[in-house]
Every structure is written in structure tokens, then in C-alpha cells.
């Protein structure tokens, strides 16, 4: 018998039992749609995170001094490093997550960063009004600050605050600039912050020297070169021998990280989270498969007579086997397609009603179809085999 005819016979049987076929599909539909949505959520989150990280600049390298606080990086060191090939700018940073701020009427807490003028370029910061920290602010240890738009809103009630006075941990500062809004991210709002001159920060927080340095490479391609110079310099400085890895150098004295390595870490984290969630959802596919097997067994028992008739007029074992296999694969394959459709609908609602970022990869349509067909075939083998092995005369006599 030709395969096209077997498919026709099998599918007409699916069609003749629409309600039952649909109920059988339900398990697969739910399984595939939840896998689709979860994978989509994973992709969406990953895209969001990598967009944010890339927004910070792919040329960015972060150096953290982790140990040996007696050795500090001096201004001369910075000048020497800045002259190295591949390195464009360096900005030291002191930061703290929690300072008290106060205007005449309101008070709040926020994040504080203390740095140099280069910080604006390296961290891609821009002001909407006023100016950023200048060299003279650092040199003269002026009590000036640049404020995030959200912070300004929090304590002044508006963002038109250049020239206003406010208090940081009780010390009076003048607002010289307001940052442009960057929007909220998963890592928290980057609009709620204040930035002060490095020297002012050293005094305010009673820290000897900056422990974190933001380095901008000349281009994305120069990141590795810049990193190896940084590494070489720091090894000499800390008197250690080290053969570091490509994108991340870690030891007990310092850590050099490129944006790419941060991106990789973030990506692998979301990826493993996504596959774990999808794996859990995939269990429902197995349950769906068992459902198919269950119904197919009932169907074989119900249609024993039909099988007997087919065998009496010349159907071979493999004809019957294929008929039932195609039937279960058809049910599950169709369920898979409906599942993907439901997934798309769910993703639409997720995005527009709940604002979750969901990106459904286009190849998932094919994958879901193939995977659900495979589930159908695997769980259809036992019932189909049972049907094909029926003895013709016993099947015919069956009432």
C-alpha cells in the first residue's frame, strides 16, 4: 500500500473522531505551548540583559583591586596605563550603594559614585541640563554633584534642579548637572544615583583610594590587547606571575573583566535557567504522550473488528502498524502545531498585558512539530504493534 493512502486512512480516522482527537491532543498542546512560552521568555530576558550590557559599551573593561590594600594605583600609574596601546581612557571609581540625601523638604537614600570627568564617556553618561564633573572639581575637591533624574524627582519633586543645594550624608553639595534618563533595567534603576568628584568622594567615604577602575579600549577589537597590557602592568605592580585566561583575569589581588565576559556569564546564566524551565515543561509532553498511548490502546480495542476486516481483505502487518503509527503521530504533530500557536497567543498576551519580554525563536515551530511527532511515534509504537499483531480471525470474531 502506498504511504499517501495510509496517511489518508489514518488522518480520516483522526477526523472522524474530532472530539476524542482534540482531547488527546490537549496534553501535547499544553506541553508544547508552555515550552514555547518559557523558551520565549528566556530568549526575551537574555536579549534584554545583553542589550543593557552592550549599552554600557562593548569596549568597557572593569578592573577591581581585591587584595593588598597597601599597594594603590596612583595618578602616575593611570597616566602610564593610558599611554599603553589599545587603552583610551581610564576612570577610577569609588562607589557605595547607600547614602542619605536630603533637600530642604525631602530626604531619601541613593547610590553614590565618585569619579573623574572621563567617567561620563566611559560609562556612556550624558546630562540633560547643566554639566558633568570637571577636572577642576576633582582638583579642588568641590562639593558638587550630578544627579539622576529619578533621584531629583524623589527629593526635589522635579528635574529642573541645577544650582540647587542638597545634603549628602549631612554635607552640603551643589547640583551642577542632571543626567539623562536611561530607563529602568532588571538590575534596578540607573536613574536613581548621584555622581560626585573622586577627591570629594575619597574624603566623604574616608576611603584611601579607588579600588575599581573603568577602562575604555580604543575599539571592540582592541579589548584583548588592552586587557593584556592591564594584566602585565598589574602583575608588575603586585609582583606576581600570572598567565591569565582570554577574557577574564582573576587572582587574589585583582580582577580584570571585559564586557564580553560579563555578557557571556549573563548569557550562560539565563540559558541554563531557560533550559531548566523548558525541561520542566517538557515533562508535560511525556504526560501528553502517555495520554496518546492510553487513547490509542482504547482505539485499538474498539476497532478490533475494523482491523480484522482489513486483514481479511489483505492488509499486511506493516500496513496496520503504519496506519496506527501515522494516526498517533498525526494527532501529536497537529497538537504540536496548535501548541505553538497557543504559545504565540500566550506570548502576545504576556508582552502586551504583563510586559514580559518574550521572543519566540522562529525555528521552534519546526522543532515543536518534529518533537511532538516523535513523542506520538514513541508512544504510538506499543498500541500500533498490538493492533498489527492481532490474529485476523480473532479480530473478525470480536464483538
Amino acid at each position, binding site marked *: *500500500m502506498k504511504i499517501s*493512502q495510509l496517511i489518508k486512512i489514518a488522518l480520516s480516522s483522526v477526523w472522524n473522531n474530532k472530539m476524542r482527537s482534540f482531547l488527546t491532543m490537549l496534553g501535547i498542546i499544553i506541553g508544547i505551548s508552555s515550552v514555547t512560552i518559557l523558551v520565549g521568555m528566556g530568549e526575551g530576558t537574555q536579549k534584554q540583559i545583553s542589550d543593557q550590557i552592550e549599552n554600557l559599551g562593548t569596549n568597557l573593561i572593569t578592573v577591581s583591586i581585591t587584595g593588598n590594600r597597601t599597594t594603590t594605583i596612583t595618578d602616575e600609574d593611570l597616566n602610564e596605563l593610558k599611554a599603553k596601546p589599545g587603552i583610551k581612557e581610564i576612570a577610577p571609581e569609588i562607589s557605595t550603594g547607600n547614602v542619605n540625601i536630603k533637600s530642604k523638604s525631602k530626604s531619601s537614600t541613593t547610590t553614590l559614585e565618585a569619579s573623574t570627568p572621563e567617567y561620563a564617556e566611559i560609562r556612556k553618561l550624558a546630562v540633560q541640563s547643566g554639566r558633568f564633573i570637571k577636572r577642576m572639581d576633582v582638583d579642588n575637591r568641590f562639593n558638587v554633584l550630578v544627579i539622576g533624574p529619578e533621584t531629583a524627582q524623589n527629593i526635589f519633586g522635579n528635574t529642573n534642579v541645577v544650582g540647587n543645594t542638597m545634603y549628602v550624608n549631612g554635607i552640603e553639595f551643589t547640583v551642577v548637572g542632571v543626567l539623562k534618563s536611561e530607563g529602568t533595567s532588571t538590575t534596578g534603576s540607573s536613574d536613581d544615583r548621584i555622581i560626585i568628584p573622586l577627591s570629594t568622594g575619597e574624603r566623604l567615604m574616608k576611603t584611601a583610594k579607588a579600588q575599581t577602575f573603568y577602562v575604555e579600549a580604543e575599539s571592540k577589537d582592541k579589548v584583548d590587547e588592552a586587557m593584556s597590557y592591564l594584566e602585565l602592568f598589574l602583575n608588575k605592580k603586585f609582583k606576581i606571575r600570572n598567565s591569565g585566561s582570554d577574557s577574564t583575569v582573576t587572582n587574589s589581588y585583582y580582577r580584570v573583566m571585559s564586557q564580553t565576559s560579563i555578557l557571556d556569564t549573563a548569557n550562560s546564566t539565563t540559558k541554563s535557567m531557560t533550559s531548566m524551565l523548558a525541561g520542566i515543561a517538557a515533562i508535560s509532553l511525556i504526560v501528553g504522550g502517555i495520554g496518546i498511548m492510553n487513547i490509542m490502546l482504547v482505539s485499538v480495542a474498539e476497532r478490533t473488528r475494523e482491523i480484522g*476486516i*482489513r486483514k481479511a*481483505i*489483505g492488509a*499486511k*502487518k506493516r500496513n496496520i502498524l503504519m496506519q496506527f503509527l501515522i494516526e498517533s503521530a498525526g494527532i501529536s504533530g497537529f497538537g504540536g502545531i496548535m501548541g505553538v500557536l497557543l504559545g504565540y497567543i500566550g506570548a502576545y498576551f504576556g508582552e502586551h498585558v504583563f510586559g514580559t519580554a518574550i521572543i519566540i525563536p522562529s525555528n521552534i515551530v519546526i522543532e515543536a512539530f518534529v518533537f511532538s511527532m516523535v513523542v506520538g511515534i514513541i508512544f504510538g509504537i506499543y498500541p500500533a504493534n498490538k493492533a498489527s499483531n492481532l490474529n*485476523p480471525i480473532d479480530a473478525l470474531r470480536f464483538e
Partner: protein
Amino acid sequence: MTEDRSGREIIKMNGIEKVYKTGEVSFKALSSVDLIIQKGEYVAIIGPSGAGKSTLMNIIGCLDKPTKGEYILDGMDTNCSDNLLAEIRNKKIGFIFQNYNLLPKSNILENVELPLLYLGYTQKRARKRAEHAIEKVGLKSHIKHRPCELSGGQMQRVAIARALVTGPQIILADEPTGALDSKAGEEVLEMLSDLNNEGNTIIMITHDSKIASRAKRMITIMDGMIKSDLSNGVKS
């Protein structure tokens, strides 16, 4: 498997025995049946209920296997693989059952073309040939109907069309008129006679001696054994 067409012996049974086992109990439904049927014969197998007629018929039709004995069909030993038996049922045998055994969810055309599809015909060729067979049994106008929309007599004619469609060597009819009224039964019997006149080998089972008298040869079975074998009223 040697072809032996010299004697035109289409069926040759030698010491056929069939034992049914139901749990501990075993029942001998056929014992030492020897039977030769020539090509073109019209044979009635008659006997009381439970005599073993259907059992013999199922073995002749390769739906069941004998427990013991040798059965040569059209020169081929039937002690072979299930696949080959399916092919024999498909090409060499046409079944007509008392309860029609049509597929209820398929229409007349689909029912009749199915044996051809199992034979490997393309849809187009199968359709043409099936239409021809349906025309022959006078149901051309009902081609798209489902079996449940037909009368018993019409259903049995569909079954005849299906039995004929592959051009089999033997037509096996197990009480073909058992569920029909006398008029419809007469139609079916006439059709079988016509088919025999066209050269088809027909084996019909019945428990009614009046119906059996339509055949040219009458074999009586009792308690699983052949009691008599008469050709045109003469012992053969």
C-alpha cells in the same frame, strides 16, 4: 512452494485438523479433513450449527491456520509467513460474510477499492476498477453512500463487489443469505450463480439444504468430519 497447475486443483487439503484450546479445555472442531476442489466449481458446505463449517472456511480462506495437516492453495503450501498469507487473502480470495463486514465509516467506493489499495494500486487505478465492480453489482448510484444507508441486500452486494474487485481465484461465502429476507437472499444467490457461470470458483457455507442445492457440489460436515460429498446429486 512449487506451482502445480496441471490438475486445475485450486484447493487440496490433506488430513486437516483444527483444535481450539480454551484454557484447560481443548476442542477438536475439525478432524482429518481431506478435500480437493477444482477450478470453476460451485461448492456448498452444509451441516448443522457447530459442525465446523466456519472453521473449515476460515482455514480455506487463510484467516486461520490448521493445527495439523497440509493445505495447498493454487499450488502453494499455506504453511508460510503471515505476510504471504496476507497477500494470498488479498489476491486469491474474496470473502463474503454473513454480517457483511464492511467498514462503517467508509463509503461504498472506499470499501470496495480498499483491497486494491492493499494490493499496491494507485488511487486513480483503484477507483476505476472499484467503480466497475460496483457497477457490476448494480449499485453505481450509491457509490458515495455509507453502508448504514443501505439495505441488507445492498450491503451484501457491496461485499460481493469487494470480494470480486481483485479478481480472486476463489470466492468464499459464509452464510451469505443468513441475515437477508428471501427476496434479497435470492438476488445474492443469483449473483453467485452468475459469477460461477463466468468461471469463478465459489465455496458457500449454509445450513439450509434448499440453498445448498443451488451449488453443483454439496459437502456435508458433521462434528468436524466430512460425512458426504455429492456432485449434482451423485456421490463423487
